[in-house]
């Protein structure tokens, strides 16, 4: 067993806290809490325009591909499972399984991103709906684009943890907390998509759009 693996078996030593919750963890919860306001603004912006009529181009709600987005949603939902399994594996000191689940989570996140690129490409090339087509299209691209950016940042953090673990032979005590923070971020990205999938896709798609 490497030193890193041995240290990871007691992952909650040397934590800094004055509130009963480790400081960096509390900061992450505060950040995620503030992100509700960020995504809330973008979702609200979309809802303000979705019911309006525009002279130019289609609205996103008229061209959604619900079966495709449902599969993407399922993929992102399952990435939360692999993320929590990575967390669980590291808390048991199983460095190999941790790396496997981290990589699986990054791959599922990448599949979700590829799906989003495909969806955007279809909308732009086949449906002629660009960022500037109408306010509803702009709101849609900005909302889902920012969510996709969050997923991409998450994938980079997951791959960084994977690379670090591979290079050092395992994640250390301090890095256990990093994995926990990345996990919180990743699950948050998932719950935001849960809301977007229901409110933006399922509730606003016009009949027959799928």
């Amino acid at each position, binding site marked *: 067993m490497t030193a890193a693996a041995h240290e990871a078996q007691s992952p909650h030593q040397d934590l800094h806290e004055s509130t009963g919750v480790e400081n960096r963890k509390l900061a992450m919860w505060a950040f995620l*809490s503030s992100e509700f306001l960020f995504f809330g603004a973008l979702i609200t912006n979309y809802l303000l325009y979705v019911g309006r009529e525009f002279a130019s181009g289609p609205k996103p709600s008229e061209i959604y591909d619900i079966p495709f987005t449902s599969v993407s949603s399922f993929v992102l939902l399952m990435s939360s499972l692999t993320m*929590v399994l990575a967390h669980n594996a590291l808390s048991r000191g199983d460095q190999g399984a941790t790396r496997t689940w981290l990589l699986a989570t990054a791959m599922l996140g990448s599949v979700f991103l590829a799906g989003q690129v495909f969806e955007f490409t279809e909308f732009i090339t086949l449906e002629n709906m660009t960022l500037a087509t109408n306010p509803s299209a702009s709101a849609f691209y900005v909302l889902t684009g920012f969510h996709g950016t969050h997923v991409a940042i998450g994938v980079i953090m997951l791959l960084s943890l994977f690379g670090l673990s591979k290079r050092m032979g395992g994640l250390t005590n301090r890095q256990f907390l990093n994995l926990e923070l990345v996990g919180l971020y990743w*699950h948050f990205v*998932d719950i935001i998509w849960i809301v977007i999938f*229901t409110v933006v896709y399922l509730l606003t798609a016009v009949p027959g759009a799928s």
Partner: protein
Amino acid sequence: MADEHHVAHPTPAQYVKIAIGLAVLTAIEVGLFYLNDAVQLGWINTAALLILAFLKFVIVVGWYMHIRYEKAAVSRFFTFGFALAFSLYAVVLISFGVLAVSR
């Protein structure tokens, strides 16, 4: 030190069961979407979809983000942010008359 570890976290098998539950809820959501295409369910469809999404939200936050095992302060902190955002934007949507956005 946080008292989050006094309660045992779920096992990998339990995490998988939770994921299956989430997948089933998603399948019900998509099924409802198509049912509403065939038979207009109106506000029932809207309410059902929102309840299902809320259930998925709570399950991920509670079990995958481990908020059930955290200090109460964390839970209050997170809930406050969510409640603040929800209230603020609900007021905006009501003001513009689009809260009843539906198909």
